[in-house]
């Protein structure tokens, strides 16, 4: 009696686990299909470029404030923390290198992507999810307008274009924040701050690699947000869950991709 109920419970657990795994793989395949469809339809949306411009305004321009303010604080904290350790070794002039390299290589792309997922990704998911709930997407299909060309592709390209710009801004503003703390506040030599930075930051290796990272993160974050919106069950609860999933999956994907990209870039 007890044995059979235990067996049933274990079997149910395994079945649930299997169903979840199959669901995940299903969603992965559907996401890949949406990605290829987006690429396929993007020619059409590039011909109506004002749609992309509108989305750049909503995803990129509207994210400027949060990006700039957080970059400023991240840079200032980096300078403070870096100085604390570096001055023990008598090399507080290297603070410029520390701030610049950590921002340009890692924090710029990664923190921007995380903020972007929270600020713009959720908006995209909620908007598309609500469009689906209110049957706007079906109405478009009815009028022989492809929702992928009209809704998905412009948002995708807007995200891909915005992300490198935001990440570059993040790095630059962060370095300015670090400069403000290091030079006027702590009293590190102004010339040493910049010259050490210039001697150790390479354009090709550090800045371009950071740009490549942010481009990849832009594709990943935007695609995840679009797919979650497109895939959301057409209910209030479904949209809210999809929005949450966007943030969680985007953040994890960005951090995982960052490791992979860094390992590729540093080996060479």
């Amino acid at each position: 009696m007890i044995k059979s109920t235990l067996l049933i419970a274990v079997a149910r657990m395994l079945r649930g686990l299997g169903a979840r795994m199959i669901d995940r793989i299903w969603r992965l395949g559907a996401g890949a299909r949406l990605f290829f469809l987006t690429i396929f339809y993007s020619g059409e949306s590039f011909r109506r470029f004002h749609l992309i411009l509108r989305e750049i305004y909503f995803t990129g321009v509207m994210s400027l404030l949060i990006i700039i303010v957080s970059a400023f604080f991240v840079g200032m904290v980096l300078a403070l923390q870096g100085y604390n350790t570096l001055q023990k070794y008598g090399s507080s002039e290297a603070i410029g290198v520390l701030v610049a390299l950590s921002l340009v290589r890692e924090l710029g792309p990664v923190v921007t992507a995380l903020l972007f997922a929270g600020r713009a990704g959720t908006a995209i998911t909620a908007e598309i999810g609500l469009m689906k709930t209110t049957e706007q997407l079906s109405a478009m299909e009815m009028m022989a307008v492809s929702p992928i060309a009209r809704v998905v592709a412009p948002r995708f390209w807007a995200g891909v274009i915005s992300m490198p710009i935001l990440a570059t801004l993040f790095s630059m503003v962060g370095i300015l924040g670090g400069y403000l703390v290091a030079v006027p506040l702590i009293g590190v030599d102004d010339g040493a701050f910049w010259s050490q930075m210039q001697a150790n930051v390479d354009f090709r290796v550090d800045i371009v690699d950071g740009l490549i990272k942010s481009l990849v993160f832009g594709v990943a974050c935007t695609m995840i947000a679009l797919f979650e919106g497109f895939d959301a069950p057409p209910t209030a609860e479904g949209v809210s869950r999809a929005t949450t999933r966007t943030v969680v999956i985007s953040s994890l994907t960005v951090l995982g991709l960052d490791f992979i990209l860094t390992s590729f870039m540093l080996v060479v």
Partner: protein
Amino acid sequence: MDRTTIDLWVGVFVALGMAALLGLAMKVGNLTSANIGPTYSVSAAFENVGSLKPHAPVKSAGVVVGRVDSINFDGSKFEAVVKINIDQRYAFPKDTFANIYTAGLLGEQYIGLEAGGDEANLKNGDKITQTQDAIVLEKMISQFLFSKASETKSDSKEPDVKPLASAKASGSKAATKAVELGDPGF
């Protein structure tokens, strides 16, 4: 084509991004530091350049006056030939001394130029003959250890007398054996 406010904002956004990239390239990266206006090229041969790299600064009296252009190996003389570009504004005598120094204990390596007293100045394509190699830390440490080891060898002869004296006093077999092992030349 009608212009909208959104166009303006997107334009501002893209311009900001461009400005930031330009700032990163010019102010943070080393894209500009490689060219310092018109330069003339001089070469110098070193037996060992240590970890000197292209784009490393060339300093005189602590002021950057040029950059290392390239470092090549001369297969016939087995030495490193370093090409350096010096700012056209600064002229150096022909017998200028080129050293490879290290900034701080663990810092980057750079070339220091010490001006000589010659009347004629270095011209484009000239060769600096007086050079001093980079200090290789391992070499210095091994030299130090060797000299320390030879010091301890010469020191060790004196304390060996003591066990001999104690061994004679006690007369035990083990002690005499220890003396034999301890100083065979005695």
